[in-house]
C-alpha cells in the first residue's frame, strides 16, 4: 500500500492550522521533554504547511526534529486528523530531499539486504499448527523468545515457526516508502500461504504492522493466552504482589488490546495498580518511532518519565508485554534509581506467566 504524499493531507494540515486546539500538545512525551512547540504535533502541522507551500524546504535540521517523534499515536487519539500518516509523509519528504538521518538509511538498507533488522540468534524451530510471526526483536533475544514459547506450549498453543523476513515497520516509520513497498512485496511473496488462517504475533509493532499494512488476520499471543486462561484450561499459581501495567502503544492504543494483559495479571493474583495515564492515553516508553536510534538520551528521558508514573502510584514493579518497552523502561529505571533512590523493576508478562505456570 503506497503512502500518500504530504500534499494529499493538505486539508488536514490546514484544518489543524486554523483550529489549534492544542489537545495534542501537553501529553506529547517528546514535547514534554523538549518544550519547543515544533516537537508537538500541532507545531509539526505548521511546518507541514511550510513544506506544502514550499516556504520551507527539507533540511537536516527538520529531519532531526521529525526523527524525534515516537509515532506513539497519543496525539492522534485526541484528534480528528491523520497525524501519524502526516508525520510519516513529512519524514518521507526528508528522504526525498536527501536529508534523512544516515542511521535510518543504514537500517533500511540492512533489512533490504538481509531480510531483518537485528541479528537473529538461534530461533527454535516449531512445527505446530498455528503460524507464529516472531519478528526481528524476539529473534534477536533467544532467552525471552524461549520463555514466551514455553508459556504458549503450556497452554497447548503449538506454534508453527519458519523462516521470517522483517515486516518493514521501521522503513515505513522513518519515511522510506519506496523501500517499504519493496519489503512489502518480498514479505507477501514469502508468506503467500499466510492470511488463510489466524497468525499469532509476539511483538506489538509487528502486530499492528501486519494488521494495518498487510491486512493480515493477526492476534497477539497474549490475547490467545488470556482466552485459554478464561476457559480455565490451565491453572496458574498466585504470585501475589503489587504491580502496574504499561500499555505498549502498538498493542494498546493502536490495536485495542487493553484488558487481556490485565485479566492475566489478575489471574496471577497480582494486585494491579493503574498509572494515571493508561489504556488509550498511556504514554510511550520512549523506544518508539526509531527515536532510540537517533537520540538515546531523549529516549531514556521519556522512559524515566514513564517510570516516574509508576513511582507516583506507589508501585515498584512495571509489567508489560513488548520487547521494546521492557528494555527501554528497565534501562531508564536503572538510571532513575540513582536520582530518586527508588528502583522500579520491569518484568515481562511472559516471565510472570512462566513463573506462575512452573
Amino acid at each position, binding site marked *: 500500500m503506497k503512502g500518500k504524499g504530504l500534499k494529499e493531507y493538505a486539508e488536514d494540515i490546514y484544518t489543524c492550522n*486554523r483550529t489549534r*486546539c*492544542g489537545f495534542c500538545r501537553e501529553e506529547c512525551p517528546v514535547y514534554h521533554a523538549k*518544550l519547543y512547540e515544533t516537537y508537538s504535533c500541532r507545531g509539526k502541522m*505548521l511546518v507541514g504547511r511550510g513544506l506544502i507551500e514550499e516556504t*520551507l524546504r527539507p533540511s537536516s*535540521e527538520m529531519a532531526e526534529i521529525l526523527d524525534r517523534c515516537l509515532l506513539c499515536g497519543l496525539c492522534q487519539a485526541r484528534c480528528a486528523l491523520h497525524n501519524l500518516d502526516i508525520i510519516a509523509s513529512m519524514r518521507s519528504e526528508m528522504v526525498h530531499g536527501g536529508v534523512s538521518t544516515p542511521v535510518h538509511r543504514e537500517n533500511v538498507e540492512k533489512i533490504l539486504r538481509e531480510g531483518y533488522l537485528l541479528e537473529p540468534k538461534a530461533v527454535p524451530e516449531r512445527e505446530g499448527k498455528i503460524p507464529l510471526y516472531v519478528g526481528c526483536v524476539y529473534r534477536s533475544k533467544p532467552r525471552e523468545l524461549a520463555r514466551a514459547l514455553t508459556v504458549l506450549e503450556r497452554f497447548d498453543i503449538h506454534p508453527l515457526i519458519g523462516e521470517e523476513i522483517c515486516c518493514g515497520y521501521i522503513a515505513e516509520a522513518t519515511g522510506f516508502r519506496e523501500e517499504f513497498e519493496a519489503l512489502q512485496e518480498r514479505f507477501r511473496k514469502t508468506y503467500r500461504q499466510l492470511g488463510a488462517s489466524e497468525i499469532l504475533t509476539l511483538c506489538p509493532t509487528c502486530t499492528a504492522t501486519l494488521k494495518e499494512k498487510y491486512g493480515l488476520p493477526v492476534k497477539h499471543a497474549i490475547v490467545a493466552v488470556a482466552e485459554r486462561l478464561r476457559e480455565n484450561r490451565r491453572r496458574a499459581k498466585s504470585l501475589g504482589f503489587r504491580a502496574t501495567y504499561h500499555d505498549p502503544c502498538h498493542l494498546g492504543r493502536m490495536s485495542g488490546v487493553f484488558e487481556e494483559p490485565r485479566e492475566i495479571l489478575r489471574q496471577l493474583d497480582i494486585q494491579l495498580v493503574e498509572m494515571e495515564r493508561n489504556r488509550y492515553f498511556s504514554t510511550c516508553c520512549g523506544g518508539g518511532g526509531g527515536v532510540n536510534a537517533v537520540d538515546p538520551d531523549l529516549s531514556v528521558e521519556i522512559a524515566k518519565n514513564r517510570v516516574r508514573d509508576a513511582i507516583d502510584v506507589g508501585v515498584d514493579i512495571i509489567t508489560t508485554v513488548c520487547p521494546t518497552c521492557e528494555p527501554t523502561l528497565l534501562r531508564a529505571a536503572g538510571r532513575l534509581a540513582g536520582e530518586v533512590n527508588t528502583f522500579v523493576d520491569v518484568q515481562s508478562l511472559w516471565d510472570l506467566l512462566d513463573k506462575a505456570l512452573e
Partner: protein
Amino acid sequence: MNKEQIPKAFAELREILGDRATTSTVHRMAYSRDWSPRYREMDDLPDIVVIPNDTQEMVRITKVAYRHEVPLIPFAGGTGMGGGAVAWRGGIMVETKGLNRILEIDEHNMTAAVQSGITIEVLNRELARHKLWLPHQPESKRACTIGASIGCDNDSTFGIRYGKIRDCLLNAVIVTGRAEAIRVGQRKASFSSTGYKLLDLLVASEGTLGTITEATLRVVPLPDVREIRGYVCRRLNDTASGLERLLGSGLAIESAHANCRNRLHFYTHSYREKYGREPQFPEWADAILFLSFAGDKDIVDFNVERATRIMVDEFNAEPVAEQELVEGWWDSKHRLEFIPFKQKWPDSQRQKKFGAADLGLPIGRLEEGYRHYLEIAKKWDQEILGMTIYNESPNMATASISFAVFVDDSSQDRIRQFYQYVREMSEMAIQLDGTMSTYIGDGDRLGGFNQLEHGPGLKYMRRIKRAFDPKNIMNPGKKFQSRWIESPEG
C-alpha cells in the same frame, strides 16, 4: 526594530540559555500563529525563540531585548483568538512552557503558587490530589496556562460562581519591559486597599507590560457531585431573567450558559448525527440555558429540583428531556473527554474557521444585540454559527457573549471582511452601552480602534505602558494598534 540587532541579541541569549535559544526557521515556523482568524497562507515568524526556566532567566532575556531594542512576545497555549501571541513585528518569542513548576500548594491557606507556564489542566490534576481545584476553567484549559489566563483575561466555565482569573489571583511576578522583576498583589490575602492595584493591570495586559513568570492563586475544595441540566426557553431574554431569578432565590449555580436558536439548532444537529433520532424540542424553543450545580449530593438535588420548578412555573421553560444532549454539551464545554480516535470536526470547520466577536452587553439588551448580530453578519457575508452567553461574575447574571461565525480564510479579502464584521459588532456594543471584548482581548485587532470605547482613557493607558515598558519592546503594537481595523481617526 533594527534587524541588525538580532544576531547580537541571539549570541547573548545563547550564552544565557544554550540550546534553549534558537533562530531555526523550522522552530520559528511552529510559532507563526495563534488561533486568530487570518488567511490561510499568513504567518508571522519571530526571529528568535527562547525557553526560560525561571524569573531570573526571564530578567536576563529582557535585559538583552532592552539593550538591543528587540520585541519580546510571550507565547503560552497558542489558543488565543485575538492575535495577541503572534510576532507581528518579529523579535524574540518567549515560550513560557519552561516555567512549568508548582512552587507551593498551601492547603491550610487554600493557595497554590506556580510558575506561569503551567497549564490549568496540569495544575488541577495536581490540586486534585489535595481535593482542591482552581475553578478558573477556560475551554482551552488543556493548552492554556496560568500566565496566559492572566495576560488574556479569558473566559471561565464556572464564572457565575467563582468569577474569572482575577477573582482567584492573589499575587504575581512580572518581569517588566525595564527588565525588573516585581511581585505585585497582596501576598496570600484576598484583597488590599493599599497602593494602586497593579495586579489588576496585569490582567488582560497581553504581554505588553512585561512577562508574567509566577502567580499565587486562591483555590477551592473539589465538589463531590455535579449535575448538569438544560432548559429550552421561549425567548432569549428569559435565559437572563430566569438566571437572575434563580440567583435571587438563593440557589447556588455553578455555571450558566445561554444559547440562541442558531446554537440550539447546532446542538440538535449534533444530537441527530450522534444518536440518529430527533430531540423532542417544542416548536416554540428559541433559546437554551445550560446550568450546572455542584457540592454535596442532597444540596445539589435540591438545587436542581428548585431550579427546574422556577424555570418551568415562572418562565414557561421546558427541561431538556434528552440528558445525552446535555451531557454531550458538557463534554465539549468542560470534560473534553472525547472517545479516542473518534473525534470529528464538523465539515464546516474543515473548510472554514471559527471566529467571534466577543462583546459584553447589559443583560437587558440581549435580544437587541442578537438582532444586530444577524444583520451585521449578513452584511459582511459571514456564516452564522450562533450566540453563546457566558456568565462570568460571581452570583449575578452577566453577558459575555460569543457572537460566532464560520470565517472563510481562503483569502486576505475574506479575512478583512471578517474583521469588518468585528468592527461593526464592536461599534454596536458601544452603542448598546457595552464593551468590545470580554475574553479575547485587543490582540492585533482592536488596538487603536478601542479608543471608541476608552476615549481619553487610552492616552493614560499609553502612559501606563511607557512606565512599564519605556522602549516599547513588550509585545509592541498590541492593544494600541490594529493591523485589521482602522482607528476612529483613520
